[in-house]
């Protein structure tokens, strides 16, 4: 079992109540959490996470022109579609053997940095904090709110709120100051994104081989002007978050156990370094380590590997409780990788999706999400890795690796130091995110604003590098390529919520197999054939309940905080359901000029 150990003994006779939330709100998609709660011991004893949505991208991608993959897979998600486009382009660049010009790489990196800033802000301030706002805390833990009224905010000189309760009031949806300010900020960051990638959220200017963004001086200065408007907001967001989360630890001793699971974190790395990357599989380990967020797999606080080749070869897609038939009797597409290493039949390159709709049964199959696992070569275990919602794993891996050293960011081996320049009001600030003791709900949420700061700091560096090239008269942002008859490719990237990989097999210049694996299948996976629960289930199972309500008025806020701390996004998590309404249209594209008379 690769799960978190059971907790303390010394218990009262159990008083078990079945509680379920289906669908969970403030999450895109259809996530259901089914639990058994022991109210006598204030603990969750069992948890199942289920998704009732099937989409089938890996089914209908087959036979298409591979150059379309980035545009199609972007539609997997309405908030992080650009991450899919970027990742798909990485995979295609490997397959076509093409390397975009440096300026194109900077433009992609700037777009992705804006996406991280936008997405984390809107999720943290407009969705996560509803669980920590005054109205919610009043309904679930009135004694905590009373204490918050009396507690001074230690970083009030930075963010301007006197007490913790003042901050909580500012989190109140639709009326709180922070809630409204975050919406404005997420608009500005989306404008930054559109300057680089053309359109949010499905980029119109990202292609394999480069970008279509016109690299004019004004594009970069427009981006910079907006970035300087959000930089103070970012500094304040970190201070606000630290105040509130530190207060929760003080006000509710033992709250570190909420959502705590064994430290099993995965990060596939983000932002390529244009000087190093060549997108060849043979050198993937070398250019993977040069990324500005370092890839890594962390088990019990130790770095197991930061080699993307090892990470790739260890991927296994298991079926234990998912509505699919097994594909092990099918013909494998890739038996050996370009380095000659054998590739498992359960690897995404060899996967065939065979959906099999059926009744939901928690002792049998109960979800459309499969169970991605990472095969640990030393122990032979299939690890149920999670992403910590994205930022936790990214910062953890970058800090432990200690490889990132840029003008604004320094990874120290135990922390990440982020320096942000003077903004409109606040002076130059150095923030330090230190590796926490636990992988739990609060730490997943706390890492998010730090990563917004990280993205802002990286954006400054990419801007400087891009502007240097533009000042030298550089305009080249695209490299021509030919689609080969047969090729394989894989792309590794960090979607906003964590690990993202795209695996592509080309035969006869068409897609023979295509499998995107975003973060949510990792996080929301059901029990695998070895009985190992997925991260949501594992984190919720055994967590204590701090809510003061009895079973009749129980809201389950602690459980919701845990699930939402992973930043769940089910459309990414599942692999078309045509119900009673059925719309089929025939379209043929493209024909130049037919509609232009």
């Amino acid at each position, binding site marked *: 079992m690769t799960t978190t150990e059971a907790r303390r003994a010394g218990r009262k006779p159990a008083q078990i109540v079945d509680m379920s939330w289906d669908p969970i709100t403030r999450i895109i998609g259809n996530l259901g959490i089914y639990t058994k709660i022991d109210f006598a011991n204030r603990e969750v004893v069992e948890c199942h996470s289920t998704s009732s949505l099937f989409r089938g991208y890996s089914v209908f991608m087959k036979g298409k022109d591979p150059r379309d993959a980035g545009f199609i897979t972007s539609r997997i998600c309405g908030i992080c579609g650009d991450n899919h486009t970027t990742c798909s382009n990485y995979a295609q660049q490997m397959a076509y053997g093409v390397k975009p010009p440096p300026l194109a790489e900077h433009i992609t990196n700037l777009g992705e940095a804006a996406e991280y800033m936008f997405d984390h802000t809107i999720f943290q301030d407009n969705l996560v904090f509803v669980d920590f706002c005054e109205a919610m805390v009043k309904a679930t833990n009135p004694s905590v709110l009373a204490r918050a009224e009396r507690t001074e905010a230690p970083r009030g000189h930075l963010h301007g709120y006197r007490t913790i309760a003042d901050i909580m009031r500012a989190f109140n949806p639709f009326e709180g100051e922070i809630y409204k300010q975050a919406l404005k900020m997420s608009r500005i960051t989306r404008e930054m994104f559109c300057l680089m990638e053309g359109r949010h959220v499905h980029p119109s200017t990202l292609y394999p081989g480069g970008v279509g963004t016109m690299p*004019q001086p004004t594009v970069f200065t427009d981006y910079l002007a907006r970035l300087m408007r959000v930089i103070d907001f970012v500094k304040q967001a970190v201070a606000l978050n630290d105040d509130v989360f530190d207060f929760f630890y003080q006000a509710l001793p033992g709250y570190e156990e909420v959502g705590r699971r064994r430290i099993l974190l995965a990060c596939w790395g983000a932002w390529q370094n244009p000087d190093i990357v060549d997108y060849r599989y043979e050198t993937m380990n070398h250019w993977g380590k040069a990324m500005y967020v370092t890839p890594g797999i962390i088990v019990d606080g130790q770095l197991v590997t930061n080699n993307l080749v090892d990470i790739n070869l260890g991927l296994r897609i298991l079926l234990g409780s998912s509505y699919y038939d097994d594909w092990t009797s099918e013909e494998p597409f890739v038996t050996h990788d370009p380095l000659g290493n054998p590739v498992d039949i359960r690897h995404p390159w060899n996967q065939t999706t065979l959906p099999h709709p059926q009744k939901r049964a928690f002792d049998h199959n109960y979800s459309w999400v499969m169970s991605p696992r990472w095969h640990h070569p030393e122990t032979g275990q299939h690890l149920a890795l999670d992403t910590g919602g994205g930022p936790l794993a990214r910062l953890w891996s970058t800090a432990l690796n200690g490889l990132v050293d840029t003008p604004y960011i320094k990874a120290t081996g135990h922390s990440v130091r982020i320096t942000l320049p003077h903004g409109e009001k606040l002076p130059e600030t150095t923030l330090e995110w230190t590796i926490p003791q636990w992988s739990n709900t609060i730490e997943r949420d706390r890492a998010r604003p730090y990563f917004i700061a990280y993205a802002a700091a990286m954006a400054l560096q990419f801007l400087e590098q891009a502007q240097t090239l533009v000042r030298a*008269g550089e305009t080249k942002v695209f490299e021509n390529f030919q689609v080969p008859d047969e090729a394989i490719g894989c792309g590794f990237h960090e979607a906003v919520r964590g690990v993202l990989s795209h695996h592509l097999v080309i035969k006869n210049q068409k897609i023979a197999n295509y499998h995107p694996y975003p973060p949510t299948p990792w996080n929301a996976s059901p029990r695998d054939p070895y009985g190992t629960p997925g991260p949501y289930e594992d984190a919720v199972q055994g967590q204590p309940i701090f809510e003061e309500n009895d079973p009749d008025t129980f809201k389950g806020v602690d459980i919701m905080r845990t699930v939402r701390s992973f930043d769940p996004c089910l459309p990414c998590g599942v692999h078309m359901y045509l119900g009673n309404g059925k719309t089929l249209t025939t379209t043929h594209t493209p024909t130049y000029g037919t509609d232009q008379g």
Partner: protein
Amino acid sequence: MGTIRVGRRDVKPDTPGHVSGLHQGNWGPYERQTGHHRDGTSDARRSTGIHWKKHDTIMKAMPNISPG
């Protein structure tokens, strides 16, 4: 598609979304497009077709880039 019954599709999946022969927009007739260079760089003359000989920088120290 496993055990799911699906109808016949109306469109071939490989209906092309691309026309071969398209190149990067800036790649083209360098003789007629003043200010574009074959190495992917450009200068201030790129942005005008009128009296382009007069639109270069007047000093070496000035950045010779097209106005954005």
